[in-house]
């Protein structure tokens, strides 16, 4: 069963459509990068996916179950790293671990402590006193400690410096290699996403304008590159994900 299925997902705020009839399937084991400019609807999509927001129409299914109606049930199998670290500021990572351990069916507290040690984050420092990068690392550690089948990362590198971004993605890549978790990541860090994603979706003004496997996308844009060169010197010039993103979302050129 596909971990994520979106069926005609629409979210409206009054007249404005934050998401407009978005349908998307993320197969098991794949890493899907969801890209889009600010305000494209990424966060609304993630909130619907996590059952935090009721879609105006359509539905979001997690492992075949409606995310709004059966949120608490399906989230046992989902780890979440939010855009803004939102854990209670007074709680230490250890306390957060203890709290979460009571909610999940399985909880790897030792693994979490080990991961934080690798990150160099203290387990006894209140969450509110950690740096932004450390908060993201704690959030990732919490998300992975429940051994999820699906990991949802909502722009986890937002505001992080280059080193923190690198650490986070390396941890993620290692985890993916070890466990083969399905991942949905929304990010502005296109280079980072390119390293891990095997599928890309691009949102533009609430509409999903691109949903394709990374390999297929690269081939398609390489072909276009040949055509552009024409009868000149024969060179293979593959567009980067960033260039593809700009091409897909550049409103001026369509």
């Amino acid at each position, binding site marked *: 069963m596909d971990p994520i299925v979106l069926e005609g997902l629409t979210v409206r705020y009054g007249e404005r459509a934050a998401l407009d009839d978005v349908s998307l399937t993320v197969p098991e084991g794949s890493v899907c990068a969801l890209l889009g400019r600010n305000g494209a609807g990424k966060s609304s999509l993630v*909130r619907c996916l*996590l*059952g*935090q*927001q*009721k879609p105006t129409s359509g539905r979001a299914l997690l492992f075949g179950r409606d995310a709004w109606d059966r*949120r*608490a*049930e*399906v*989230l*046992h199998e989902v780890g*979440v790293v*939010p855009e*803004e670290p*939102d*854990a*209670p500021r*007074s*709680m230490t990572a250890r*306390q957060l671990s203890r*709290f*979460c351990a*009571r*909610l*999940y069916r399985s909880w790897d507290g030792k693994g979490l402590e080990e991961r934080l040690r690798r990150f160099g984050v203290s387990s006894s420092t209140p969450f509110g006193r950690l740096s932004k990068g450390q908060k993201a690392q704690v959030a990732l550690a919490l998300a992975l400690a429940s051994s999820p089948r699906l990991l949802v990362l909502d722009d986890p590198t937002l505001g992080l410096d280059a080193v923190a971004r690198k650490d986070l993605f390396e941890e993620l890549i290692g985890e993916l290699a070890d466990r083969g978790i399905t991942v949905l990541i929304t990010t502005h860090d296109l280079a980072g996403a390119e390293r891990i994603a095997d599928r890309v979706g691009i949102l533009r003004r609430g509409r999903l304008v691109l949903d394709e496997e990374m390999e297929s996308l690269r081939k398609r844009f390489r072909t276009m590159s040949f055509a552009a060169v024409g009868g000149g010197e024969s060179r293979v010039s593959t567009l980067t994900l960033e260039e593809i993103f700009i091409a897909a979302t550049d409103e001026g050129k369509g």
Partner: protein
Amino acid sequence: MRGFAAVFGREVSEWWKSLAVASLALGVLAAALPAFMDRPEFPVAELRSAMSLLFAFLLSAALALLLGGTVVSSDLSEKRLGFYFARPLPGWALWAGKMTAAAALACGGGFLVLVPSLLLGSGPGLRGDLETVFPVRMGDLGWVPLLGIGVLYLLLAAHAVSVILRARSPWIGLDIAALGCIAALFVMARERLILAGLTGASPVLATDFGLLLLVLPILFTAGAVQVLHGRTDIRRGHRFLSGTLWGLLLVLMLVFEVSSRWIVNASPGDLVATFHVSAPREGSWIALSGPARGRLGYQPSFLYDVSTGRFTRPRFGLSYYQGPTLPVAFSADGRRAVWMEFQDRPFRSPLVVRYQDLDRPDGEPVRTNILFESPLPEILAVSPDGARFATIHKRRILVTEVETGRLLASVPEPLDIPFSRLFFVGPDRVRLYVSTGVQDMNSVVSELRVFEVNVPAATVEPTGLVSSLPGYRGWSLSPAGDRAILRSRKELRLHDARTGELLASLNGGGRSFASFLRDGRVAASRPTPEGMELRILASDGRTELQRFRFPGSRRLAIANQPAADRLRIVTASTLDKPRDWEIRLLDLRTGGVRSVGRRAMTVLDIQGTIEDRGGVVWFDWEAGQERAILEDL
């Protein structure tokens, strides 16, 4: 439940240390403060416990407001509630866990304040005058559930207000409008009950408290719906909270509104007992009041036409407690009823005089412009034609035109003695009877002093005196007001009602009864060796005109005179109470007696009778039959 326990534990662990320190510090302060207070009339231990309780209440209330306004709503507004909603944690567990923890912390903080006083040894609480200011006592645990309810109330209300304010949504305008509507509905319905006489009494307080209790689950439900359906979106949550809160409150207030209308729309058939029944000698209207069935102790009063079943709802029953001795007065011809009732709120507004013309098919109570401020008048009399009324107010006898309110006479009350009675003995003459030397209402009167008010001349002068009558039980005036029958335990006397001169002794004793007939003759009963006999005497009380014997009867009383030549009498064959009266119709021309039934009755001197059970029975003299008009009261 694991989710609930996790959230509860997390909230408590976040707050308990700082709260415990603050509470204990406050408790120490409360325990130490009495040592510096200069109140030697109270033992220090009592002051200490009172201060501790006061501080505990204040702290619990403050914590309830603080926690209610933050535990969910600040997380929501700071976008931190997503942490919980990104976990496999049911919304109800989040809401209930946080609120239960907040309530436990608020109550627990209050209890911790008491600890130092309890350790030092506390008294029961304040006594004397101060107990009325702060009536809670350490040893009485009745305040514990009240504290819990109060904490929950503040907690949930603070949460609702906090979400509404933090959402910063245009919906706040609708919130204010809804609050206004609901407050208006509440005030209207409550005012209706108060105006109807459910005043300052436990029914209204019970209603208020009941409504407050019902608002609690509504506040809880509204908060739960907000969390369950609004989740991390504060504006959406605000809409759900407001919709649920105001919707349910509106339903509650509409139920209250409908209930209050139902309560005050009681009809005579809803009475379960009668506190007062009176009727004129003529006509088919009666005045009655009593408690109504299932209506929070509401005691409506009615003017009720027994021939048609039509009724109106004057509020004379209310003034009965503090106002006139007679709650309603009828004109002699039975065509007008006059009474006083409170203008607005009972016992807090002036009495206004109202009347109803009973001979008009569509007659309704009419308000006059005659008002009486406190102190309220004590007595009310109506002229034979119903055009004037007399009362005593602020030690003056006032005679006023009913319809215009024009004051016809105002004379000083000759004696400042209670138990006075006023009677019109013509349109321009008002007689005042003052009982002096009264021990109590039913025992001894040493004398009855008579005064007469000359309305055109606006004068009052003494006209007579009835000397001591041991064992006094009451008296009645003849229809023309010229004679009076005085009843005592052993004697019946006929007096000149103006001068007090003794006209005749009607003989008799304890079981005797006497009454005036319409034409001024006197009907008097007395026991004989065979039973009872009824004598019809001339107006002088001495000349016997007729005599009727009722062998085997031990009691005989005259109920009323439905026609000039007919008397309705009641007899009983036993002296035991309650008596099973046999009702008989006596034809004065032929001497024929016809039994029309048996009833247990208490009030006899009106055309209707009141049964011991409180039912009202009417005698239809045209049909010659008793008719129960209000049964099973």
